[in-house]
Structure formats: C-alpha cells, structure tokens
C-alpha cells in the first residue's frame, strides 16, 4: 500500500496547488502594525528606489527623520518598479495598503481611492502642501481632493550619446519625426545601435506609441479616447504607422525583445555603456544608466520627443509623470509627519543634489547643477500640455493592453489598426 498513498498525496498537493495559484498569490500581503506598548509608532514606507544612489539616500533620510522623531520608527520596503506594481495589486485586492506607498497618481490611484483604501489628505496637508509646484500635484487630485504628495516631477524624452551621434554625423538632435528616422538610419549606417529598448518589460515601448499619439492625434484626443472608449481614430492608427516605420528600420539592440530595463544586460546599461546611442526614458535615466552601466557623464544629452509633420500636437507638449506618496486610509499621524518632512526644503535640496530628481519645490531648483536636468526642468515648466503615463492614467486593464499591443506591434505581430482595435475593445469591456 505504499504507492497509492504517495500518488494520492501527490495528486492532492498537485490539484490543490493548481487551484490555489490565484489565491495563494493573493495571500502574501504585508502586514503593518501601528503602535506598540512603549509608545513608538512604526510606519511602513513602500517605495521603488532600488537603485543607487537613491536607495541609500532615502534610507539615510528615514534615519534622519527617526532621529528627529524618536517616537516614530520607519520601516522601509523597497521593490523594483514592476514587482512593486504587481505587489500593490495583490495588496489592493486584500484591502490593506502600506502606511506610506509610492504612487504615480492617475487611474491606478483613482481605483484605490474608489475602493476606499486611500487617505484623503486635503486638510491634513493643507498648510505646507500649498508651497509645492501646482503642475506636480495634479496627478493626485480627484474632485478637488488631495490623495498624494509629490516628491519629484518629470518627463519622458530622448537621452542620447553625443559622441555616437557625432560619429554618425548627426550634429543637431532631430526636432521632427522625419529627421529622427534619418538620424536612426545614419547611426545604423555607422554600425551603431541607434536605440536601446527593454522589450521584456513592455512599458518602455509604450512611451513611443503614447508620444506619437500625442503628436499626431493631440493630447485632447488621448483624454477623449479614454472617456469615449474609442481609440480607433485616425490619429491613433497613424501613431502606430509612424512607430512601425521606426521598427522597420530595426533600430533596437540585439535581443531587445527579452531585454529588461535596469539589469546589467538591459536597456539602461546598453546606453550607459555606450553600446546604444539613445533611449526614450524619464528624468531618472542618467542615474539608472550609471547604476546598471558605466554612465556617460558629459557625453549624455537630452532632447524632447520630435514633432510629427502635419500632426495636431506640438513638441512642447510633454509626456511623463512624477513620483508621489499616498497614505492608506487610517494611517497614523506619524505618516503625515513623514510626508511633510519628505516635502520639506531640506529634503528636496538633498534629493536634488544627490539623486538628481526634478524638484517639486520652487526653492530647491537652485540646487540643480546637471545641465541636462536643468534642460528637462525648463521643458517641463514651459510645457504647453501634460499627459500622464498611459499605464497609470488609464484603468489598469486598458493601460496594460496599451503596453501589450504596442509590444506586439514592435515584435511585428500586430498592425497599427489592430493595436487601435485591441485597446478599444479592452476599454469597452472595462466599465
């Protein structure tokens, strides 16, 4: 009777594991406990600063805050960007979020707010949050209520290797899509990989389509398409066609379809090590390039996403978003204190100096030294329009479908029309 017992147990375990897959994953939530007997409050702080120097600077800031507030303990939980998003989904489903958590605002935060999981900060942050730059606060406000406090702002643009551009004979960064494609061809002709792309992670690919849609259909169309659940307009299909033009030039590094973003063989490292001439990435790009690769130093340059000839959008309209923090509903006052500390001038100055963020406090701008970041900051302040990351601005299913179908377009399995249709279909299914 030895065998049947074994097989039965194996069968039970196997079938249980299969059915459980879903629920078991949901089960692994974090638990945070508030106060303890000796009067100290432990505040859990979830962020995505997993790369240096941010990682240690943030930890040091937490220590500094603890030193100033002996009754408060900060427990830091750091997760890599993608892992963080997945984990937060699980936590949201379980109904309990960390005390302080990273947020990009937009549709994802709104869903958490609608589920009643996020603290309304309107009154609790009133006196000091007024001093922050207005544009940086917008992604966290719904119905005039504040649900998050920003600590940086930013935009997506091309980070390029000046030396490689020079080698290929591209003297000025392109300002039109036609000029951009030409620059790509020139780089290719010199056997330089024009663009690094993290195809495995999908969101970096979405940036191209989103920017192109902004340039062809215009920012208002992106907003309207989301409301009407219809992305089949000519502008969106055209955006896909422009992206297809680029893909057809085969501008990406070898094996980009399975490349990650911040790993030693990923997108940022390829640019940071001078193996690819540019990447379309946010304001954090220089620090990740230096962390995952060697970094380019003075050879690194920035130019905004080019305008598309005949499109409705302008080159001054920016796509991006900042980082912010939100609190779970019922978070202790200590968490609000920490937000205040994190948005203070001293903290902002330190973040600007050491981690090259773009400040949300006007006063912290004077600490900026990097010419590229100054350029980005100037772009942002002069922006004539702003669009939040699509995978954050839209409901999660729609945002993911954008990422997924654009990835399919880049991999060559979906046509521009099919991309527009897939996104529309998902948007319609989502209430």
């Amino acid at each position: 009777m030895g065998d049947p017992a074994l097989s039965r147990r194996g069968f039970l375990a196997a079938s249980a594991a299969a059915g459980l897959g879903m629920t078991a994953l949901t089960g692994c939530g974090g638990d945070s406990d508030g106060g303890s007997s000796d009067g100290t409050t432990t505040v859990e702080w979830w962020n995505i600063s997993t790369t240096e120097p941010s990682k240690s600077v943030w930890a040091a800031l937490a220590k500094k805050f603890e030193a100033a507030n002996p009754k408060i303990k900060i427990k830091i939980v750091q997760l890599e960007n993608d892992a963080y998003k997945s984990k937060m989904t699980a936590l949201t489903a379980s109904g309990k979020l960390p005390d302080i958590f990273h947020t990009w605002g937009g549709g994802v935060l709104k869903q958490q707010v609608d589920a009643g999981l996020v603290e309304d900060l309107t009154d609790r942050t009133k006196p000091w949050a007024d001093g922050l730059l207005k544009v940086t606060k917008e992604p966290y406000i719904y119905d005039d209520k504040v649900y998050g406090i920003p600590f940086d702002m930013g935009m997506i643009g091309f980070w390029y290797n000046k030396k490689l551009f020079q080698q290929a004979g591209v003297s000025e960064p392109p300002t039109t899509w036609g000029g951009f494609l030409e620059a790509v061809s020139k780089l290719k002709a010199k056997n330089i990989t024009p663009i690094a792309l993290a195809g495995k992670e999908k969101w970096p690919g979405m940036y191209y389509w989103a920017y192109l849609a902004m340039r062809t259909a215009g920012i208002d169309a992106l907003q309207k398409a989301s409301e009407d659940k219809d992305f089949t307009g000519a502008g969106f299909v055209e955006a896909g066609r422009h992206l297809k033009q680029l893909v057809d030039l085969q501008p990406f590094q070898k094996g980009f379809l399975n490349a990650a973003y911040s790993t030693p063989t990923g997108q940022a490292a390829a640019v940071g090590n001078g193996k690819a001439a540019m990447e379309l990435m946010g304001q954090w790009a220089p620090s990740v390039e230096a962390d995952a690769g060697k970094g380019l130093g003075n050879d690194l340059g920035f130019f905004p996403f080019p305008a598309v000839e005949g499109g409705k959008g302008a080159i001054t309209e920016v796509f991006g978003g900042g980082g912010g923090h939100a609190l779970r509903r019922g978070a202790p006052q200590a968490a609000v204190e920490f937000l205040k500390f994190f948005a203070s001038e001293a903290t902002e100055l330190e973040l600007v100096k050491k981690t090259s963020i773009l400040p949300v406090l006007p006063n912290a701008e004077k600490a900026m030294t990097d010419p590229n970041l100054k350029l980005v900051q100037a772009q942002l302040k002069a922006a004539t329009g702003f669009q939040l990351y699509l995978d954050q601005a839209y409901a999660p299913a729609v945002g993911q479908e954008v990422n997924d179908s654009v990835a399919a377009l880049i991999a060559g399995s979906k046509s521009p029309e099919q991309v527009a249709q897939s996104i529309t279909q998902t948007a319609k299914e989502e209430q």
Partner: protein
Amino acid sequence: MTSTFLADKRSGPGTDLPPPESVRARGRGRRRVLHWLTAVGFQLPALVLFIGMVLLPMLFALYAAFFRWGGFGMPSDYVGTDNFTDLFDNPIFLGDLWRCLVLVLLSLALQLPFALAMAVLLNQKLRGRAVYRMLFFAPYVLSEAITGVLFSMVFAPDDGLADHVLGAVGLDGLGGLWFADPSYVMATLFLVMTWKYFGFHMMLYLAGLQSIPRELTEAALIDGAGAWQRFRNVTLPLLAPTLRISVFLSVIGAIQLFDLVWVITQGGPDHHSETMAVTMFQYGFKRYQVGYASAISVVMFGICLVFALAYQRFVLRRDLEGATTTMRGDGK
C-alpha cells in the same frame, strides 16, 4: 471504507472461532468510536488549515470565475460563463494550452528518457558516482528564481556565457537570440527546464533501480540476455511504477509552470513563452481582472483534475492493485 474493512479483517480473529455475535458487535462499536476520535484528533489541525487555506479559497475562486470582478469588495457583477467563453476565444490562452502540450510531450520524449539514461549510467560501478549524483541533483535544489536569473545571463545575446562558449569552439553560427527569439524561446526554456528538473527524476529512477534485486539481472545474464535485453525485459518492467509516478509529476509540473517563465521572459517575446499560470498572473495582478484570472485558474485546476483522475484510473491502477508486488513476490 475499504481500508477500515481490511484493517478490521486483518486485526480480527481470523481463522479462530468467532466470539458470540453480540460481544463482537459491542467491542467493535466502541473500538470504532475510539478509532474515529483518534483519527479526528490527529487530523483536526491539518484539516482546519486545509479547509481554511486550500479548500475555501479554491471554492471562492470557482465562485469568482463567474463574475466580472476587479478584486475589490465582493464580486457582484454576475456574467455567467462569459469568462470561460472569452477564455476559449483568447488566442493567448489557446496558445498557452498548445505550449503546455508541447512542454508535456517534450518532457516525456526527451527529459525523462535522458534522466533514465543518466540513472542507469550512475547505477553502475563508477568512480566518483556519488559526486555525479550530487552534481546532477543540485540544480533541482536551486530555487526557480535563481535559476531564471542565472540563465537570463547565460543566454544573453552576444554577452552571455552560451554565446561565448559556442564562439570559443568555433560554433558562433549556432549562437542566437535565445530567449529573445519568438521561434526559439520555448526550445531554450525547455533546455533550462531539463537542466533544472532531470536530476530530480534521475534520483527517483536511481531509487527505483536500487530496489530491483540483483539476482534477477544475474539470472537473465546466465540465461544469455544481452545488455539491451536485460534493460528492456528486466529493469524497465520493474522500474515501471517509478516511471509512472515520474511521468505524473512531470505532467502536473508542466501544467503549472510559472516561476521560471516569469523570471526569464515574463511570457514574452510577444506571448511566445506564456503559460496558463503566467496569463492568469497577467490578468489577475496587472489588469485587475480577477474574475477572468479565476476562470483561468479554474480551467487549470480542471485540467489537472481530469488528468490526475484519468491517470489514476487507467495508469496507476496497476500499481494500486499490487501487480508489481505479485511480480516481486514471484521473483523471490
């Protein structure tokens, strides 16, 4: 019920004269109550855990599969079997099923025979065979995540170890995009899976091989059987129960494959290495379509269940009936 019956029969008076009917019934009744209490007492903690953490969540997933549900609050938007019909219209999910079948067939056709060959080899008298056994088993002990990260580096195009090694022996032409190539990603993945899991099956077979009495092989040798005949007619039949279990574990493992794929490719490029569990994760945790994801997990469960039951009924049945024990008894 059968086991109690058997146990009673075995522990009963047997060939002795049975005691008077009334005495026997009373004694047996009390003993049965005691039996039950003991069983319940021992099983209660495990039972509570099993019901609370396995059974109820499973039933809830089954319930949620009939709703359009984002994971917040309780499911309320009943959609009938829509999730399931959508699922079988979804090219990604149909692809998952196909890839699952391919993995199962590849495992059965290549991985397990390879494991068997290694087991037979390492069952011989060989210098340092303990070292080999340990080496081959080591990958199985490694966590899936570490294996994934490791092989992402090994198969990184151009910079990876695989391409360097191929280049060093003059086979640069064989190097490629590996995981980044939609046409080769499954083959590369299968290579990693084989590396990771063949040691486990090899160990199972080794254990099975060692329980085969040496006399049988010797007898066959005396009868003039060649190496292949000895393997085919003596070793293989006696190893059959182990083989059947190993096939079972391998198939169930292929159906549930997740962590390795997630770490290495996240199902890409362009869904070409996606498995059912990965699709479930994408919908449940990236798109907040928990109802839909539950439907996927229900289908996965169904497939496992049907396979497991059919396998028990038709394949493992011989083991259950003690066919092999009879054979072993004959041998002695």
